[in-house]
């Protein structure tokens, strides 16, 4: 299976779709929830994983995020940036998660042994790469990579979301991609 990174146009289309689904959801169309899940599950999971470094925690946060999206869909005001709203919800949940756990991020051993993909062989390959990625980058680098590459958010949006200077976000992204390019070259 080959998945191609989204173009700017595709990202805009994706944002439009998310907004439409949130609008449907706010009118009580619960069937929209399934379509929204299919559309952004990877974005939500990737961000949680980038912040926690732990698959089980990311799984829990993903579920809580979707439930909260469902509960507060009526509260969303369309501005063309639904991912920022969704990630804000998720970030709040992650913060609460860390407050509750009050522990530092450690990579869970179970991550190595639980390939979730049905295609086991491909799952193993992805596990290895993702594990390497997660270990090579620090939390902030993973966060920026996840938001920019997986969710397609612009650097400026990320800077605003994380309340960081643009140059800081770009600097972290720059450092991250250099590490990632080295990993890809090694393979």
């Amino acid at each position, binding site marked *: 299976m080959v998945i*191609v990174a989204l173009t700017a146009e595709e990202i805009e289309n994706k944002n439009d779709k998310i907004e439409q689904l949130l609008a449907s959801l706010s009118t009580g169309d*619960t069937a929209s929830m399934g379509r929204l899940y299919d559309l952004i*599950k990877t974005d939500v999971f990737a961000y949680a994983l980038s912040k926690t470094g732990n*698959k089980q925690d990311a799984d829990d946060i993903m579920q809580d995020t979707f*439930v909260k999206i469902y509960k507060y869909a009526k509260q969303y005001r369309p501005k063309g940036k639904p991912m920022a709203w969704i990630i804000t919800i998720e970030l709040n949940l992650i913060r609460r998660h860390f407050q509750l756990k009050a522990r530092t991020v450690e990579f869970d051993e179970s991550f190595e042994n639980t390939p*979730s993909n049905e295609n086991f062989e491909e*799952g193993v390959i992805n596990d290895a790469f993702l594990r390497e*990625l997660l270990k090579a980058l620090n939390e902030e680098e993973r966060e920026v990579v996840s938001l920019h590459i997986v969710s397609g958010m612009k650097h400026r949006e990320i800077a605003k979301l994380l309340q960081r200077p643009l140059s800081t976000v770009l600097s972290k992204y720059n450092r991250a991609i250099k590490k990632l390019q080295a990993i890809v070259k090694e393979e």
Partner: protein
Amino acid sequence: MKQKWKDKIIDAYKSETPDNRERILSACENETQYSVCPDERKTRKLPVFFRRAVSFVACLVLFGLGLFVGQIIPETQPVATAETCVYLDVNPSLELALDKNDTVLSCTPANTDAETLLNGMKLEGLELKTALNAIVGAMYVNGYLSSEDNSMLISVDTTNENNTSDFLSYITNQVNEVFVNSEMECAIIAQAVKADEALKQRAEEQGISVGKMYLLDKMIGSMELITEEDIAELANMSIKDLNLMYSAKPDDEEEKPSDELISGSVNVKVGTEDALSAVLTELGKTEDEVEEARIFILPSKRGETKVVYSVTVKFYNDKEIYKYEVDYQTGELERLDEEDGFPSHGSERQQPGNGFDD
């Protein structure tokens, strides 16, 4: 090739994402939809004009309170030893000496603007909180602090070092309390200082406050593009310019110092992204063509005492490196002649560098 590693990342995350569709849909079915998010229900903002008016009146009241209370406090104070000195720099610079209960023992102007500001105000005997309200309120009323110029440097020299971090937070919050009903927020650098004789002497030589001198020393120590030779130029710069430069320091992997608290953001008309856009527009290029770009906030090299965005850009398929200075107030830009490559620092502390490779 360029897309390959990005696709690989998305592919990896996608294949790793668990399929919880049914579980999540089931969980949602048991939930009630709300129209207002509890986290965002708290405040209903008043109109901007009303908030500004309320803020202005509040500042006048505080200012008046400072004057009134000052008048009724007896001139003679019991002799007490200062445990803490708080230096405030906006442009008026002044020094508050506090006893162990944070009661003001003395308030000393450090320049003529502060003399004007404090004229008629007697703050001795007041609690720090009340004195701060009166001083900051007066700064606002007299136009030293405004939404366009919102920078403040707070320096604390105390013999009680156990709770320096808490004290910096407290004093920062107290300053911002003055503006709680307005849209304004101060951009504050709060720092713990050790005002030894050497520091005082250096400050005196430059004709600036101890707090500002301490900040300049920190800048020279931590920002490799700023050297001791720049000290006279830096001393003439506003707190706003210094705040811009210092707070733009990139976060590094080290822990944040407990003797420093940077809060709020300096209001500028032209942001870093605008500065880069201005350069790209000038050159007729787009972000996609940028191989590498770095933006620093540095003193101008063009003989003016101000800070500017120093933008260095290199494009794909172009060996030339373009260097510009962009004014953060007006967006005006000037190309620099030197073409000696990207700024080299030897360390990454002073590299708010931007890499736009995609």
